[in-house]
């Protein structure tokens, strides 16, 4: 089934210089394997193409069942220089959770 990440994962974001970071945490080890395979740096870059002007880097944090993404040049200059409402990337985690992935129906918990 194709579902938004919010069904199977949770996330938090914040600023990292003139970029943001988004931590994406899987609900289960099985889901973590799906995230690893499907939520690539390229897909995240495409998802945030109008937000992120730079590259997207991905790190794995398997002990937390998590991936960490750095969205370079995504804050309009960052911190105090930026004219954006979201100058600190606080909303990027919520944005990533709308990305859709394929999840076998048997891995889906109750509706979230």
């Amino acid at each position, binding site marked *: 089934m194709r579902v938004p990440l*919010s069904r199977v994962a*949770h*996330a*938090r974001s*914040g*600023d*990292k*210089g*003139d970029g943001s*970071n988004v*931590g994406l*945490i899987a609900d289960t080890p099985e889901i973590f394997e799906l995230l690893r395979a499907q939520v690539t740096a390229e897909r995240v870059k495409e*998802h*945030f*193409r*109008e*937000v992120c002007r730079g590259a997207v880097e991905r*790190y794995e*944090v*398997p*002990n*937390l*069942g*998590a991936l*960490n993404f*750095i969205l370079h040049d995504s804050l*309009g200059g*960052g*911190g*105090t*220089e930026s*004219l*954006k*409402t*979201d100058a600190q990337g*606080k*909303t*990027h*985690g*919520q*944005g990533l*959770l*709308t990305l859709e992935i394929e999840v076998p129906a048997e891995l889906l918990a109750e509706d*979230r």
Partner: protein
Amino acid sequence: MRAVRIGNGQGFWGDSVDAPVELLRGGEIDYIGMDYLAEVTLSIMMRQKLKDPAAGYATDFIGFVRRVLPELVERNVKVICNAGGLNPQGARARVFEVARELGVGGFKVGVVEGDDILPRLPELIAAGHELANMETGEPIAPIVDRVTSANAYLGARGVVEALGAGALIVLCGRITDTALALAPMAHEFGWDFEDWDRLSAGTIAGHVIECGAQCTGGNFSRWWEVPDLWNVGYPVVEAHEDGTFVVTKHEGTGGMVTVDTVSEQLLYEMGDPRQYVGPDCVADFTSVRLAQEGLDRVRVSGIRGGPRTPFLKVSASYLEGYKATGQITVSGPRAVEKARLAAETVWKRLERAGVRFAPEQTTVELLGTGACLPGVLAPPADPPEVVLRLGVRDGDRDKLARFGMEIAPLVTAGPPGVTGFAGGRPKPQEVVAYWPALLAREEVEGRVTVSVEEA
């Protein structure tokens, strides 16, 4: 050895003024850490200090001391904070004044100094320290005249020394947030400052609690699962000598501490999870093990780390022109089209007046149409209202003042349904930009001073 209970009552300057008081009164606690410094706060404090040599620290902290000082002394609850800003001695003098007013004495206040390198910038540059911007690689020399603050992030050792000398309150300037938790652990357990795994454990404990309620249910993705968020308990770590700790909160408070809330905070503002570089060590977040050991109790273990680097991070700020933002609300049918027309109207009227801005120095946001996440969230087809937010950035203050004059006329000389213009014309604000850099640690550490005085 019993566990040491270390809380965080202030995640940033502007956080809840009641949180540290609730943390003190709501249960058992040995240490309260409080963070008052954002990236450019010290620059604001610099200006305050120039006007008044007694100023330059976080005055909110004095309000906290006034509310709770007798209880701190009576229960021997220690407070560690960076509220000293650019003037920790001044902050201590004020704490002592408040103590006299309250008739409280017999306690010690420590001050850790040596983070402020602004006066030494010319000498450091002359000695070959580039202080290159970590984002751009540019050396600091060309902008040094515009620098308004420059502080090195100190580690935990100065605070440990102050605690060792019996300080009840430790006032610092720029120390790293995580040291607010690491320092009491290193002090209580006598940790060696080359025991990288334990230092990393204390650092990660500090990272988990440094943003206050962000590990106890605040800013949590599944907010609907969080009970009584209004009364969210600020975090407490129960630390053990071996570097393991439990993240929890006082009983009877709202919020929740779960593997999920702690995981989210572990990843907050994370770069490379294997190399979390701090002043005392390099912590490895991929070594962290989390386990739910009870309601609102998450056990953290397994933490490893490596030696500190030869550098300290420096946070400098400098003036980079001005910016101004203004907004109006546009309601009724075809609100998006009307808001776009209003924005175009502003730019064209400015152009007629001879005021032009480079396109990359302007912003137009239609709040209510997914402006924070363009291209990510689909905008609604015809929202009943949107907020039009316009912003400009320029080196010329007068141009920004002129921009500020073009918002109000939209109410009568713009499309219909424009409202919500209040608070007067947008004013140009100085942009205090952030300059992160690295500096050889020996340039700073030999000059850190710790003084402890009794009230």
